[in-house]
């Protein structure tokens, strides 16, 4: 195995998984939001929630399709590029992925059909059930994939046989491995927060282009409340996750913090340039003496110099990924609180500086999710299964040529699909709530756009 194929395979995996995670993060949150909207509509009979549902379900369908197709790629990547990992860890990690397919994917996929196309074929109760089934499915999916990924971070409940293959000795320890609970909570909160920031951005954009309707303000209030409520919880969950990483993956924490020397008390570095050659973090702005407040235990806090260079993760990426993630999170907290203030003052519907900041702010959640995963996954290096199987020993016996081909192909395909998807989602979001409304009374009510022509977007007059 030459180094080029290894590097290309790592780049490809990073690329396809970073692309993929955007959509589950969005659809987990959006499915929950849709379930809440439909539930509130059935409960309160207020039309505004129905309008929210009908509007956001269109964006959900786009995001879900992109999530599905980019997810199929993932289930084959383990074999095409990481076949040795698949062979060695398959008996432990395989069942977790199989459970994800069996308990989550089919549930989501099947009831998505009912959710999107069953309007006139099922009653309201059953339709609500389908929406909830999709929402629950996305959450179960997160459960299993986070369990599998967390086992790679903090492997437990396993042994290795004479052929070098992993096998489980205790399934409960495998599934509920040390980092799993905190990372699952962290990811689910991230999904809800990402969605809330996107919903807030869509509302702010509608206000700016003067397409404000009642549901515009309602969605902004719901998003602002979600952000202000969940962001503080997310900071706690992130810290919880960090404490566990500190216990099990001290090199990752040292890279995140930019610590090189082992000390009893470490600073919090706000800004700096980790220099792996020099073995220090340059140009740093730091708050000294913070570590006793952040990490319990009183043990010496390991710096990167404690680890052989071959056992360290790439420091710069982990260090900066962490800072960007935290910055994005704090930005969303600020937007959420600001929106609450405007709500209180009754000014959510008036374009202001807030609205102009909230629109790009819709990207913050996605940025935080991707950088957070970079911290987690690059921080796990140089291992695929932390401490037990090296990345360089996991890669498939494929030449660099085919890997370069597949990487280029995925980059082109994803660039086209992502651009188109983002444009179409933004267009729907910006157009706002101009849908024809279904009559609120009859049992199997009609979806908007019943005539054949209205299935499509209205074509532009100038082609």
């Amino acid at each position, binding site marked *: 195995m030459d180094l080029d194929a290894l590097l290309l395979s790592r780049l490809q995996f990073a690329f396809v998984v970073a692309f993929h995670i955007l959509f589950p993060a969005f659809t987990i949150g959006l499915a929950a939001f849709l379930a809440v909207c439909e539930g509130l509509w059935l409960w309160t009979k207020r039309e505004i929630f129905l309008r929210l549902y009908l509007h956001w379900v269109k964006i959900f*369908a786009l995001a879900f399709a992109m999530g599905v197709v980019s997810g199929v790629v993932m289930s084959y990547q383990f074999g095409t590029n990481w076949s040795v990992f698949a062979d060695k860890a*398959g008996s432990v990690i395989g*069942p977790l992925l*199989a459970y994800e397919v069996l308990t989550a994917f089919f549930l989501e996929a099947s009831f998505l059909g009912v959710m*999107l*196309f069953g309007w006139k074929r099922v009653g309201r109760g059953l339709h609500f059930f389908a929406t909830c089934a999709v929402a629950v499915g996305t959450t179960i999916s997160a459960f299993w994939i986070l369990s599998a990924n967390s086992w790679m971070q903090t492997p437990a409940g396993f042994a290795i046989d004479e052929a070098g293959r992993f096998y489980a000795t205790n399934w409960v320890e495998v599934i509920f491995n040390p980092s799993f609970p905190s990372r699952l909570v962290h990811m689910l909160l991230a999904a809800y927060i990402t969605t809330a920031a996107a919903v807030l951005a869509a509302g702010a954009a509608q206000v700016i282009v003067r397409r404000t309707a009642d549901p515009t303000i309602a969605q902004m209030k719901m998003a602002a409340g979600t952000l202000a409520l969940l962001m503080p919880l997310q900071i706690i969950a992130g810290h919880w996750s960090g404490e566990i990483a500190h216990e099990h993956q001290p090199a990752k924490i040292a890279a995140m913090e930019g610590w090189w020397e082992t000390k009893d008390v470490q600073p919090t570095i706000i800004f700096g340039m980790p220099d792996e050659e020099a073995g220090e973090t340059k140009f740093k702005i730091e708050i000294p003496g913070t570590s006793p407040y952040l990490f319990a235990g009183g043990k010496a806090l390991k710096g990167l110099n404690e680890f052989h260079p071959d056992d360290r993760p790439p420091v710069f990426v982990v260090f900066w990924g962490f800072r960007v993630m935290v910055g994005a999170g704090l930005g969303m907290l600020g937007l959420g609180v600001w929106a609450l203030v405007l709500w209180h003052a009754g000014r959510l519907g008036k374009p202001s500086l807030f609205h102009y900041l909230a629109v790009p702010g819709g990207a913050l959640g996605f940025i935080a999710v991707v950088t957070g995963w970079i911290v987690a996954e690059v921080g796990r290096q140089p291992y695929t299964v932390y401490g037990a199987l090296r990345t360089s020993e996991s890669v*498939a016996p494929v030449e660099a040529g*085919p890997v370069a081909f597949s990487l280029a192909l995925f980059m082109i395909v*994803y660039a086209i699909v992502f651009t188109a998807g983002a444009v179409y989602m933004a267009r729907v979001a910006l157009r706002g709530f101009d849908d024809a409304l279904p009559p609120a009374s009859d049992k199997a009510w009609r979806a908007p756009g019943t005539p054949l022509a209205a299935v499509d977007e209205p074509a532009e007059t100038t082609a």
Partner: protein
Amino acid sequence: MDLALIWAFLIALAVMLYVLLDGFDLGVGILFGFAADDQERNTITASVEPVWDGNETWLVLGGGGLLAAFPLAYAILMPAFYIPVTIMLAALIFRGVAFEFRHKAVRSTTRLFWNGAFAGGSLAATLAQGLILGGFVQGVAVEGDQFAGGAFDWLTPFSILVAASVMCGYVLLGACWLILKTEDRLQGDARKWARRALIAVALAMAAVSLATLSIDPRVTERWGVSMSAINLAKFWKVAPVPAAAAGLIFLLWRDLFRNPEGAPDWRPFALAAGLFLTGYLGLAISLFPYNVPFAKSVWETAARDNALGLMLAGAVVMLPVILGYTLYVYRLFWGKVRVGDGYHG
């Protein structure tokens, strides 16, 4: 309990369901390219929109299940089929998002692009699957526990023949699905497409069957049939499969050529699905017990028993549930397509 054998059966079942279910919607995607106008195109996609996602999930179960139950087979096969797998995935991405995107494109050029992506993606995914199947059946070079062949080993006249056959088969399934789901002119077109596909499938199945017999002596041995001699004692035991295939082709011929108006709309699809089943069984007879032909058997590649056992517990509970709500969804959307049912607006 032979867990490896049970899982070989379950994975084979998942792949079979994938081939049948995504087979018809990929076939529908290929035929989409022959639709007369936008209205027909919308009807064609609407006929599979509620179910395509569930159909494709069987592919994830096939891939994920192979990783979980037979990690070594997965680890050998995926690098062996690196290029066609990559092409299949890229093609499935295009056709998957095209379901949604073609409704959202406002310019005629972008709409044309996504329509093309839907038909082209369906065709490319189909051919890639056929090449993988052909490469699989002809055998994979293995040394130790790793794939030891070249990047293009899968590309042979045999695999091209299989790819063409798979395409004809998917088109037959897709056309029969459209007979079931559509009316009037489009249904007439679908019957025409199905008739052509049936002729091609009959020829293709015969050609692939004969070519497969000459691939490996073990296959010849299993069927008792070689180019020069037939061992009747052996052939007798497996003869029901080709006999059933011939019978189903005859019944399809009757429904498509002789009396198309008299046959119920569901019957060609059921018969075509049956025909696929016979082809699949034929392959299983040829290849068993190898899941890396002709190098590794299901027992050599199986995961640990405790992994297979844990998954079996899940599968025993979940597979009936999954099949239950899959049937429910198909029943819910039973009958002719009603294009305005969607959420698009």
